[in-house]
């Protein structure tokens, strides 16, 4: 036990404790619920001096204030929220040093969707079924299985060595998703799809010119994040971190694992394309 901790003073639209995910239980219906942008999550954790898999905070569209109750190094990855530490601008994709009483302020980002706040030692909530990530459906993991609220206090794991440094090559986004086609894959190419309003951590509903309709259903079988389903509207749904474990809609394709993080950063209205992956 230590007294390293932070307090959430302003929680924003949706801030969640996340890690890589809760794996190996999909046969019990348990989803992964890991970071929506695993690439930024991994970089932020590394910059913060954490082991891969340490719990971090995933913040949707900024607007968050965090108070450090103790000195701690931390890093930001993902959406750039014009962050300030005690009033001084600080950069995303870099390690910073907070003092006891320091305040970190995130504003609304101009691009991208999610910011990863990784703090040295990791967020110290109890693991549930092998993971600290928040499952909002089952209300498990994270802090009491729910999104963070103003006033929440989160403990931190033991301090680890962390140099102050900057990521030399932060990831770039072009919203072109390499995709492995299923028999219905041709339906995906050569058109622009727009991220629809009903998109969330379970799936991204895309709007666009659908060339197939009412394909019916198939016998239920396992589905995973990155699978692209075709519901009766013919407009694709890309399954994301919190996706259900089985489904019966026909599959159009599967987004390449290395590219799915980009969709986690696509705001509503973003235009995306699928290209066939060899």
């Amino acid at each position: 036990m230590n007294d390293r901790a932070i307090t959430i003073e302003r929680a924003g639209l949706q801030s969640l404790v996340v890690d890589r995910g809760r794996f190996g239980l999909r046969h019990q219906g348990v989803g992964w619920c890991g970071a929506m942008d695993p690439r930024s999550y991994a970089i932020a954790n590394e910059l913060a001096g954490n082991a891969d898999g340490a719990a971090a905070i995933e913040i949707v569209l900024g607007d968050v204030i965090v108070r450090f109750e103790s000195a701690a190094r931390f890093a930001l990855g993902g959406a750039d929220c014009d962050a300030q530490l005690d009033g001084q601008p600080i950069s995303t994709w870099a390690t910073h040093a907070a003092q006891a009483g320091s305040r970190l302020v995130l504003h609304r980002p101009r691009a991208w969707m999610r910011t990863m706040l990784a703090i040295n030692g990791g967020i110290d909530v109890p693991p549930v079924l092998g993971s600290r990530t928040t499952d909002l459906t089952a209300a498990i993991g994270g802090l009491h299985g729910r999104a963070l609220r103003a006033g929440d206090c989160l403990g931190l794991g033991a301090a680890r060595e962390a140099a102050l440094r900057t990521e030399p090559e932060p990831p770039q986004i072009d919203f072109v998703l390499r995709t492995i086609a299923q028999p219905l894959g041709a339906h995906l190419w050569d058109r622009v799809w727009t991220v629809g309003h009903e998109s969330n951590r379970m799936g991204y509903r895309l709007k666009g010119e659908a060339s197939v309709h009412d394909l019916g259903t198939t016998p239920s079988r396992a589905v995973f994040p990155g699978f692209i389903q075709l519901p009766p509207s013919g407009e694709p749904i890309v399954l994301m971190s919190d996706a259900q474990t089985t489904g019966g809609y026909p599959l159009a394709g599967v987004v390449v694992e290395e590219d799915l993080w980009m969709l986690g950063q696509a705001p509503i209205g973003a235009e995306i394309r699928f290209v066939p992956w060899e």
Partner: protein
Amino acid sequence: MAFLMEDFGAPNFSRIGQSAIVLECAKANAPAQHRLWALARAARRWAHVGEAVVGAGNLTLLFDRHAIDYDTLRAQLETGWAGAHDEPANERTIEIAVRYGGNDGPDLGDIAQAAGLTLEEAIALHAAANYVVSFVGFLPGFAYLDGLDERLHRPRRTTPRARVPAGSVAMAGAQSGVYPFDSPGGWHLIGRTDARMFDPDREPAALLQPGDRVRFVPA
């Protein structure tokens, strides 16, 4: 009880995306489903297999493609399928107390009417059946139950509900099930239970496991 391989036919194998392999049974029937459960249990202990999920007449493995290639795993699955014991019928019977109809089961009236039954007859039919858990999926602890009386078979609702309350006892197609959590859902709601379908402190966390027999008892 042993079944001859002829009863099953050769399964079909396919790759989905980078890291998933699917085994589809030539015939989806109860003995094939038993064999899938046994094979999935074994596959969860194989090296480089992350998930082993049984569906309706199929099994999907998610594998570490950096450590094992598709053809090797396919061969392993083929051997496993041929040698898998048909799961002996599970001895467990789990009773679930249900409050049928009213606000707890807003679709019971429609279901009864479509079947030409009174409410009492529809309840009696649902509660008389011996259900078997075919697989668990969709939500944590959501068990797909085979055994619904044919007179109660109905396609799912054309417009899914945005929010189905936790504990709702539901039916769609040839199956029945219980929603473990508040969630969107397209099944017909006929009652409600207080049974805890999923509890992370329980081992296993899902109340209903493949092969379990289930009885619904009117409360």
